[in-house]
């Protein structure tokens, strides 16, 4: 099966521990696809590393009560990873879906790394992609040991043991549940090689199985960071500086301390923390603080000034991200040249659950409870701050009320803030740091503000022969732990993704980049570079098509000959949307866009209606997606619907702006987000059947809608828009 070779499995480690009589089978499989493993010694060679053999390490636990627990190494933030990863195990185990339970893995990079990163963490739509073989192997190995135990008990050949829906059986009529055989299976030797299924034999992968987190979330039993309650726990709120780069000079806390229930006021690097018995008391205490800020180093610019600085910067060539052919020479001979400039604002993630973190600092240990998304980096940052080892940082990963990138903060911002409070207090008491919506929205770590210039040269037939694209915006990765891996030759991959890998066949291509620095903290935001690059590329190509008086789908098709997966989603979306049918009629428009991010291909067709007052509504969105093997089609549909909605929200109203250095927005009244009446009435998702290894779906639905929508508006009005968010009246 070709998917196996693609994952380049270099070794496998199987670890078993029996946790005493009746504990059943606990099986861990460590399967590494990373070539740079430091530890090449097989872990199951007891003479080498006996302690590792018994290290608690598990993906699959089968208990005598017949439950199968799948330990999930990725953060469940809504994307459905609990369901997806459990499906992979259940498939190879031939378990019944009902008997599968899920549990969040502890922070342990040795056992629970993202195999694409070599560190524990969730992001880049990589959860299914990196664990596809690992989780299947975990299930297959457990199954083989159950089969061996059954064969021994029944005195039959293992090949004669049949496994289906959580039951082992033999033609003689003998049968047993997983639970009945768990203890015996735990004593079986761990098989060295376990084949995984041929995809044609899948019976759970590819099915719409119910989500594992639904019952808890529908019945208000899911525990988020916000909900953690520990004995003697105190709640902390932090007063942050009013501008980026400002620092606390002094604070008068006398009024705050008079409020009953306010227990401590402490200065920390990010501001002043008020620690109280509960949220409301802490908030009243914080409101009563009288701070003095040192704003001598603070940013006082407005978004407009930053944009103007960027425009001036764009007059000079940037660092080259890609340079094919000779754009300069080709422009001289082009029949026609078209150029444009584009603007994108800062964007807040605005997760439904504002950032928060619970921390308990004790001698030689720090324990945390939160929606942890990059456990390994958080452990390292915490260890450094607290003078502990990463192993002394115990993280309990909880459900996250959304992330969209925010909880994977490369600087561990809100996590360190919580730890700094605990450190300053030096108590053993658990501290729950809560951010209000205003704190969350004004804390920075935004999608950066970007300015783009683009120019295309067309030949006589209207086809592009030269393409020059300049991008200006802060580097997300500079100064973070990801810099060495993802900033190459001065080019931050996340700034140019979706632009430097232009799928359209244009012989002369030049993309360059300026990465100015600003004190505004920035971060990845659902689909990262594609959030702006896809808009530029897909609206500009649409403009070129109309300049050439060609159909936008036909024009793209002609340029995508070498990109069959782009083509397939483009064609599928166009077909399902009825692209070739007659125009939609007066005051209506239809637009298309196609984009690949994180190795997933998405095309969307948006239909708009213009209203008498010049406002518009998005009535229908047709989405085609190719994400390789569709592990759970309904989760994929949900991510496409939601990811599209998230992108639509930003396209319609997403904007964080600075005035005199201050963030102008504070809450949902001035940072409007998509509400139900704005969600298109019809959202259709079509999945391209594929046997390619599965890729992620959390992000790739997001960047495609803004260009599809802008192209639909252009189709209806003839007007093109070069800035997001779009105006409310067109």
């Amino acid at each position: 099966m070709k998917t196996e070779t693609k994952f380049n499995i270099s070794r496998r480690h199987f670890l078993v521990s029996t946790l005493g009589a009746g504990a059943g089978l606990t099986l861990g499989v460590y399967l590494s696809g990373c070539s740079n493993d430091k530890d090449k010694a097989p872990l199951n060679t007891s003479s080498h590393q006996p302690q590792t053999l018994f290290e608690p390490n598990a993906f699959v636990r089968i208990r005598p009560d017949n439950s199968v627990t799948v330990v999930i190494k990725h953060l469940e933030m809504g994307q459905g990873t609990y369901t997806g990863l459990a499906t992979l195990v259940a498939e190879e185990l031939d378990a019944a879906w009902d008997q599968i339970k899920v549990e969040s893995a502890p922070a342990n990079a040795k056992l629970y790394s993202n195999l694409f990163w070599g560190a524990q963490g969730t992001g880049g739509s990589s959860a299914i992609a990196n664990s596809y073989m690992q989780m299947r192997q975990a299930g297959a190995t457990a199954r083989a040991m159950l089969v061996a135990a059954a064969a021994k008990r029944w005195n039959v050949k293992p090949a004669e043991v049949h496994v289906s829906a959580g039951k082992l059986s033999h033609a003689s009529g003998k049968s047993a549940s997983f639970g009945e055989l768990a203890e015996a299976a735990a004593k079986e030797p761990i098989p060295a090689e376990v084949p995984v299924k041929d995809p044609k034999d899948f019976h759970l992968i590819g099915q719409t199985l119910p989500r594992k987190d639904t019952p808890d979330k529908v019945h208000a039993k899911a525990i988020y960071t916000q909900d953690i309650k520990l004995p003697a726990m105190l709640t902390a709120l932090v007063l942050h500086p009013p501008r980026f780069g400002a620092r606390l000079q002094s604070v008068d806390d006398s009024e705050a301390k008079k409020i009953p229930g306010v227990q401590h006021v402490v200065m920390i690097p990010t501001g002043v923390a008020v620690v109280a018995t509960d949220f409301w008391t802490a908030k009243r205490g914080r409101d009563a603080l009288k701070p003095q800020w040192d704003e001598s180093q603070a940013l006082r610019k407005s978004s407009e000034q930053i944009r103007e600085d960027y425009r001036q910067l764009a007059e000079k060539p940037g660092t080259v991200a890609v340079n094919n052919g000779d754009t300069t020479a080709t422009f001289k001979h082009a029949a026609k040249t078209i150029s444009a400039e584009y603007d994108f604002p800062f964007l807040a993630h605005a997760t439904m659950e504002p950032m928060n973190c619970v921390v308990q600092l004790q001698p030689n240990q720090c324990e945390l409870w939160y929606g942890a998304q990059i456990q390994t980096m958080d452990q390292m940052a915490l260890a450094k701050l607290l003078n502990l080892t990463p192993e002394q940082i115990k993280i309990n990963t909880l459900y996250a009320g959304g992330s969209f990138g925010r909880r994977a903060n490369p600087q561990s911002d809100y996590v360190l803030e919580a730890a700094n409070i605990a450190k300053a207090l030096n108590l053993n008491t658990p501290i729950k740091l809560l951010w209000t919506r205003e704190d969350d929205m004004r804390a920075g770590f935004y999608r950066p503000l970007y300015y783009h210039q683009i120019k295309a040269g067309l030949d006589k037939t209207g086809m592009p022969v030269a393409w020059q694209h300049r991008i200006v915006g802060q580097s997300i990765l500079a100064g973070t732990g990801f810099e060495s891996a993802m900033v190459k030759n001065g080019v931050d991959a996340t700034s140019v993704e979706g632009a430097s890998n232009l799928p359209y066949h244009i012989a002369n291509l030049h993309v360059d980049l300026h990465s100015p620095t600003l004190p505004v903290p920035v971060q990845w935001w659902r689909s990262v570079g594609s959030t702006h690059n896809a808009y530029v590329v897909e609206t500009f190509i649409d403009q070129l098509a109309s300049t050439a008086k060609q159909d936008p789908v036909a024009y793209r098709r002609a340029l995508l000959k070498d990109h069959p997966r782009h083509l397939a989603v483009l064609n599928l979306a166009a077909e399902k949307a009825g692209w070739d049918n007659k125009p939609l009629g007066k005051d209506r428009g239809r637009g298309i866009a196609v984009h690949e991010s994180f190795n997933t291909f998405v095309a969307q067709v948006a239909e708009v209606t213009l209203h008498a007052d010049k406002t518009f509504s998005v009535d229908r969105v047709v989405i085609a997606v190719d994400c390789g093997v569709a592990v759970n089609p309904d989760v994929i549909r949900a991510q496409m619907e939601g990811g599209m909605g998230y992108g639509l929200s930003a396209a319609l109203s997403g904007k964080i702006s600075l005035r005199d250095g201050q963030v102008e927005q504070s809450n949902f009244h001035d940072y409007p987000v998509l509400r139900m009446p704005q969600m298109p009435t019809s959202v259709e998702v079509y999945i391209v059947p594929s046997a390619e290894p599965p890729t992620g779906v959390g992000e790739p639905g997001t960047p495609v809608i803004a260009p599809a929508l802008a192209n639909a508006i252009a189709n209806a009005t003839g007007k093109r828009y070069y800035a997001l968010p779009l105006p409310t009246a067109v």
Partner: protein
Amino acid sequence: MITLTINGTAHPLDIDPATPLLWALRDTVGLTGTKFGCGIAQCGACTVHLDGNAIRSCITPVSAAQGKAITTIEGVNTPVAQAVQIAWTQLDVVQCGYCQSGQMMSAIDLLNKNKQPSDDQIDTAMAGNICRCNTYVRIRAAIKAAARALA
């Protein structure tokens, strides 16, 4: 001392009468199903029922809830509520789930007052509940499914 009647049980609480009901529920009584999202009646995450009407508990002081019947997501058990929770489950509406207590409380309120809401009525009634995961198409479908089940 303020006495709140929550899900049929009286809770005498020693708190400031200006405390928003949301924080009394979450921090004092320990019912954390009702969520904090904005604190200014913009997102609907904190929706509970007060004498049978959906309200935003983040801006409702406990003094205003005294003497009234407060129902939270933990206490809903009417046929309408059950139909809503079943529909939410069958359609796998939830993603991160954080907004969903509030969404369901608003949906139950809508269906209590309007047995067969139209598409526009659903959109209008639910416009105060933000879902950042944008599960809106499924919420709409689930409300309709619940309405059908109750018909």
